[in-house]
Structures are given as structure tokens and as C-alpha cells.
């Protein structure tokens, strides 16, 4: 169960990073959510064989990591964790799509490999941007920003509760599963049978906890509405941040900056 335990610790670390005090941390969460959203749309909407046009987008994560003083290695490790899923999504492209579309010297590169690389680049960019958003803003603030931008309150509250109790539940399931492991003496325990009962117990316990939490809420006058207690300001720095980055993303989306730079360099040095 070390892996679950470590995952929780990592999540807590991500959460602590949001307590930093950089120019990026101080920005209103809505500005950061908006920019990340526009970034994601611009990256994802590229053509499936597009690869060169994606590279200039890396300027955003790099700039954010350095401006917000985030640990780059930690963020990269988090992104790497998701790699197997991304590979699973794209791995069949090279098998099915064998049309050579790029010739590097004598080596022909098929469309499948290009689209596979494109999927990898895109997921690295978008997942990285999401991690950077949470690490520089905090999950709670992101939820509140989404709500401020028009997401129904019910979803925001659900997300907040999910995040709050993920820590309690993973610890609980970690304990239960460790107890099972210790008594199965290195064997499989009773296999799927005991595992089913363990999961069932966790579900029931979660249910009971939910009831107690609801009771605690009612005891403090909860009537169904969450009241906001925090005011935030969307000022000049936020507007500047949103405008500058979105303008860059939209430019990069419609102009292949790598090619532009390439032709500029080759034009200068023929």
C-alpha cells in the first residue's frame, strides 16, 4: 500500500506548493483558470499530424514553473506518471497508419509515428498545465474560480468534498488493505473474495461517515446553501495576464512559429 500512501503524500505536497507567494500565486484564480483553459483548447485543437507547431507552446509551462518557483522535477514526475495511459491511447497509431509522410535522410517516418508523438506532446502540455494550475493556485481556489466563471454550485461543492475526503478515505483504505496484507502472510489472502468484502466494508463505512458529516453540517445550521466568505479581485494584473497569454496562444495556434523561425533563420543564412 506504499503506493497509495505516497500518492497521498504527493497530493499533499502539490497542495502545499499552492501556499507559495510569487507573482503567479498572487493572481486571482479565475485569471489562471481562464488562461489554462485557452491554452488547452489551443493545444488540443491542432491537427493530428501537427508536431512542430506544438513546440512553441512549451514556453507557457516553462515560464509558469520559473515564475511561480515550482520544483520542475516534481512536476515532470507527476506528468510522467500519466505517460502509460497516454502511450496506451496512441500506441496503435504507428501500427495502423504506415503512410510515410516525412523523409529524414534515408529514414521514412510514417504518419502513425508522427501522430503518436503529437499525442504525447499534447498530453504533456495539457496535463502539465493542469498540474501547474493546481500547484500555483490550490484545488479549492480552482473550484471557486470555476464556480465564479459559471460552473453550477453543486459541482463545485461536490469537487470540494471529494478533495477534502480523498485524504481521509485513502488513509482508511490504506489501513484496511495493510491489515489484510499482514494477515495473508505474503500469499494472496483469500483472493478476490476477501477483497470484495474489504471494498464493501469501505463503502459502508464511507456511507456512515457521510451521514455523520451531514449531521455535523445540520448541527451548524446548514440549510442547503454554501455561503462564500471570500472576496477576490480581478484587477489590472489579471487582465494583463489573461490578454497577453491568450494573444500568444491564439497566435501560436494559427501561425506555426517553429516554421516561421526556421524560415527566418534559413532566410537570413541561405
Amino acid at each position: 500500500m506504499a503506493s497509495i500512501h505516497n500518492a497521498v503524500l504527493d497530493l499533499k505536497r502539490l497542495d502545499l506548493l499552492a501556499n507559495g507567494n510569487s507573482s503567479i500565486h498572487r493572481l486571482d484564480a479565475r485569471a489562471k483558470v481562464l488562461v489554462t483553459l485557452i491554452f488547452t483548447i489551443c493545444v488540443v485543437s491542432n491537427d493530428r499530424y501537427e508536431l512542430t507547431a506544438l513546440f512553441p507552446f512549451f514556453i507557457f509551462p516553462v515560464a509558469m514553473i520559473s515564475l511561480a518557483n515550482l520544483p520542475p522535477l516534481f512536476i515532470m514526475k507527476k506528468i510522467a506518471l500519466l505517460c502509460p495511459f497516454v502511450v496506451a491511447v496512441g500506441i496503435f497509431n504507428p501500427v495502423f497508419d504506415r503512410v510515410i509522410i516525412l523523409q529524414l535522410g534515408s529514414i521514412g517516418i510514417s504518419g502513425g509515428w508522427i501522430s503518436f508523438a503529437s499525442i504525447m506532446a499534447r498530453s504533456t502540455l495539457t496535463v502539465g498545465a493542469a498540474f501547474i494550475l493546481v500547484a500555483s493556485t490550490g484545488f479549492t481556489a480552482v473550484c471557486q474560480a470555476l464556480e465564479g466563471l459559471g460552473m453550477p454550485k453543486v459541482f463545485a461543492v461536490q469537487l470540494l468534498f471529494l478533495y477534502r475526503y480523498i485524504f481521509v478515505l485513502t488513509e482508511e483504505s490504506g489501513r484496511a488493505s495493510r491489515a489484510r496484507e499482514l494477515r495473508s502472510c505474503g500469499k494472496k489472502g483469500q483472493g478476490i473474495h476477501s477483497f470484495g468484502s474489504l471494498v464493501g466494508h469501505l463503502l459502508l463505512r464511507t456511507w456512515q461517515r457521510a451521514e455523520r458529516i451531514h449531521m455535523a453540517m445540520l448541527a451548524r445550521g446548514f440549510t442547503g446553501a454554501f455561503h462564500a466568505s471570500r472576496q477576490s479581485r480581478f484587477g489590472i494584473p489579471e487582465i494583463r495576464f489573461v490578454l497577453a497569454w491568450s494573444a500568444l496562444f491564439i497566435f501560436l495556434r494559427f501561425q506555426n512559429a517553429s516554421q516561421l523561425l526556421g524560415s527566418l533563420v534559413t532566410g537570413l543564412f541561405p
Partner: protein
Amino acid sequence: MSHHIVEVRNLQHVYSDGTAALKDISFIITHGESVGIIGANGAGKSTLLQHLNGSLEPTGGSIHIGHTPLSKGTLPDIRRTVGMVFQDPDDQLFMPTVYDDVAFGPLNLGYSIDDVEQRVTEVLELVGAGHLRDKPPYHLSGGEKKRVAIATVLSMSPDILVMDEPTNGLDPFARRQLMKLMKDFKHTRIFTSHDLDMVLELCGRVIVLHEGEVWADGPPLEIFGNSKLLAECRLEKPLSMQGCPVCGNNPAKDIN
């Protein structure tokens, strides 16, 4: 009329599976009293507490808080009067940060933002948790969680404080800290606990529950001096009233 009186008359509760948890409970707790409710596991302590703010509905009998009968109509008022601190602070701290959690009650009561801000700051200082205000609850230690849980209730300025096992799972230092805090409260206080030394120190009155009934009700020294009663109810003397394991001296001998 005082808001601080708790009157329980012939209270009965039968759970839907047929377990009779409370059989016939009656008592009156008056203004400013500090009462410990003790008893074995399954004696009905938690069930009784959950009735005091209407979390459970009685099967029979009635509860009056400050002469107001507990019913659906009076529930919002009674929940403001009776502040309930749950046994597991993880159940009580459900908001993203300590500040939000302590502000939750006052905001529901409709106080203005400035008012809420002031209250939250005050009660967090009172429980010695001012430095924790922006932290999420899962970054707190057990003792810190407990103190913040108490603050979430105090911020609603209740007249009566009800606590389920307040010192459960705390280290000796955190336990001392919490006991000092509770000693200073002027509210009517009702605790359940297995920490009999805490009950001896903090309570002016002890109610002993056994199998859903009140088995004894009186001053702590009288109750803890009655060995027969304690044995019947699966309890024992607080450690501070038992003999010293080294010299055999019994500090409570003179009292009994």
C-alpha cells in the same frame, strides 16, 4: 427564562433494527453545570448526546432546552443553542480551510462578512489556533483538529456545549491543553468520556448510564467512591483515585 437548562424526560430510543438503546432517561442539567456522562461501551452515551440537538428523534419522552421543547419547528433555534462537538474531528471539519470551517456556522446564521471575520479570529485565538486559519484540515495534527472542531462550534456562540469523547486519541500534552480550555468555559457543559480522570477534574456532576438507563447521578467523588456501582456498570475508579503502583499509597483513602 434561561437558555442554559437541559431537561430530559423519560427519553426512550429504539433503533430501526430493534435495539433499545435508551430505555427511560430523565435528568435536569442547570445553568453553568459541567456534567460528565459515563458508562460502558454500548451503554447509550452517544445515542443520548445525539438527541440533545435533534440529530436523532426520540421514540418516547421529551427534551426541553431552556424550557423550549425540542421539535421540528424549534430545531434551528435549538441547534444554535446547543453546540455539538463530534467524536471524530474529520466528520466535523469538512470545509477546505480552517477559516472556512469556523465561518460555516456563523454564515449559515446570516451574520455579515465583517462580523464573521471578527468572530472567527476571536474563537481561533481562544482555542490557540490562530496560526492555523488558512490551513486545510488534513494538514493538522489530532490535537489541532480537535481544537479547531471546538472553535467551529464556539463561533456560533452556543449556550450549551456538548462534546462526545473530547480527549479521545490525544497525546498527554494536547489532552492537558484541551482540558484547560474546557475548564475556562462558562457554558453549560456536557461530556461523554471514558477518560474518568478528566471527568473527575472537570465535572461537578456525573451521570452513569448502564444499558440505556440512568444508574446513578451525583457528585464525582461520591460516584467514584462506590466500588459496587462501578463494577456493575463495567467502570473503575479514575487512576488518580487508585493506589500508587510503587508505594501503595491511596490518595483517595481519606476521602472515602
